[in-house]
């Protein structure tokens, strides 16, 4: 076991309203969270913005003290000794302000030195990591002159200099193009295969979650509402099929079958999303692909459940989950 979390709770205190500024009630950012991350796995924390993912990660990395509960990473009590976290794990946060004005090369080298590497080792690891991620050609450019995705990749490079058995990555691929994403996951896989590196990944991207994660904990309003493999989670809603209908202009509500479907659809402009039992789905597709409704239909898809469907079925408010 690399990381064991028990009963982790953190409440942000209520904010009193002032003139012109409404008050906010106390918020449970993490609520009795229990997690077990095993060695060598890519463990995901999935949830929409504001679900408590980053707050949870800040408590795991020793950046924030929980109100209650325990965090044990590789046998070390991080609540009692938060300073030890920095010697066990590498953290890639969402902010790059500390590195923005450095060149890619210096950002990686300095981070390595501050991770306790000697000058020569830090330079050697810097060169190796920049080469591995394809950053050598832009090594001399300042991070803030780079595009968002390149800057993110440079920060990821800095996180890799100076080996750590646990990588905590908070939305590492935000803004990256497919080439950069592939470089990130290839680098992660290599470390996993060669050294048994464990990865704790924060994401709100369901497609990425399905393709790279070994196991995933789904967070909603500070609580873990499910924790399983992506396949295991999807099996929970295996009896449902997702039907998406896109109408040319407006839905042909004069067709009684379509009017009936409307009650079960989530509408987004011309797009309807329905979650139906397989035979219902078959009937719905037959209705819209034949007869009067077909003329109004622009496109339709029939899909097996995704993690997003799981999230919805578990009762989460799916706003903020990204499919990309």
């Amino acid at each position, binding site marked *: 076991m690399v990381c064991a979390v028990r009963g982790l709770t953190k409440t942000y205190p209520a904010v009193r309203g002032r003139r012109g500024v409404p008050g906010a009630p106390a918020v449970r950012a993490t609520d009795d969270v229990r997690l077990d991350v095993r060695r060598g796995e890519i463990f995901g924390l999935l949830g929409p913005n504001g679900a408590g993912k980053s707050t949870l990660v800040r408590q795991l990395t020793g950046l924030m003290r929980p109100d209650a509960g325990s965090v044990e990473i590789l046998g070390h009590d991080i609540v009692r000794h938060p300073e030890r976290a920095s010697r066990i794990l590498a953290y890639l*946060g969402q902010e790059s302000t500390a590195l923005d004005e450095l060149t890619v090369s210096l950002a990686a080298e300095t981070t390595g030195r501050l*991770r306790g590497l000697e000058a020569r080792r830090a330079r050697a690891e810097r060169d190796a990591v920049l080469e591995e991620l394809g950053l050598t050609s832009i090594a001399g450019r300042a991070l803030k002159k780079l595009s968002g995705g390149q800057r993110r990749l440079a920060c990821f490079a800095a996180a890799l200099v100076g080996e750590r058995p646990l990588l905590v990555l908070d939305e590492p691929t935000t803004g990256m193009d497919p080439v950069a994403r592939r470089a990130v996951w290839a680098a992660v896989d290599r470390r996993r295969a060669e050294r048994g590196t464990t990865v704790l990944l924060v994401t709100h991207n369901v497609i990425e979650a399905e393709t790279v994660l070994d196991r995933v904990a789904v967070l909603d309003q500070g609580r873990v509402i499910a924790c399983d493999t992506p396949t295991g989670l999807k099996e929970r809603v295996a009896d449902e099929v997702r039907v998406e209908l896109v109408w040319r202009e407006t839905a042909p509500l004069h067709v009684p079958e379509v009017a009936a479907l409307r009650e079960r659809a989530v509408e987004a402009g011309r797009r309807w999303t329905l979650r139906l039992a397989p035979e219902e789905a078959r009937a719905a597709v037959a209705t819209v692909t034949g007869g009067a409704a077909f003329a109004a239909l622009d496109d339709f898809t029939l899909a097996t459940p995704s993690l997003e469907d799981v999230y919805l079925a578990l009762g989460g408010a799916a706003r903020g989950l990204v499919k990309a």
Partner: protein
Amino acid sequence: MSVVPAGILPGAVADEDDAARGAAELGPRARMWPSLAAVYRAQLSRARVARIPLLFVATFQSVGILVMMRGVVDSGGHDARFVVAGSSVLVVAYVGLNLLAQYFGQLRGSGGLDHYATLPVPPAAVVLGAAGAYASFTVPGTVVTAVFGGVLFGLPLSHLWVLAAVIPLAGAALSGLGAALGLLAPRPELATLLGQLGMSAALLLGVLPADRMPEAVRFTRDLLPSTYGVEAFARTFGPHPDWAFVAGDLAVCAGVGVASLAVATWAYRRAAVR
């Protein structure tokens, strides 16, 4: 890439509890001096990207004050020494106090401190490295201002070497204060405001000689660390500088520097773990 087993690296500790749990060896801790040097170097490199226009402004402002004051202050006199010394130390106040307060304020406000806080680096290395780099940024501007002022007001430049002590010690005091303000301010805008106010105080109270000021203002002037840098530097323009007083003034700078850097380090720890 090679991997050194964590066990052979220095700084791996485990107490009895950890041994009982079978805790993994910890990675090495970054030592004080190497990490200070790394932070210093990184901060210095930022100058090339971001700071040069600001350094130019700092120098231009001080040179402008010299030119302006030339109209009201006679050359070679007692007052001229304070004008030149005050304008020179103002460069240190602008960069060390004002810009560093802004930098740390923004770093804290934007969550950039997380980067340092999740590395095994001593807090003092981060604070001292940044403060040292900002103090170094002031060297060219301070020297240019001092030489220009000396020539403009007909002051002897023979003791200009004293800047080698004035810049680091006034730099330590003012950048320590800047770092502390930046890290303690609850919001980045407040850090900027405090830095600006500190610099304005150094400008208003440093450039004019103390004996022209009312009692209450003189008391405020004595509370400002930049004053002692100005006093020390101004004394050396005299025909026979009293070096004991120069050393005394610089010792005050050093004392304030140590204290404010200690406060800034404490503030960093506090800001890093919330």
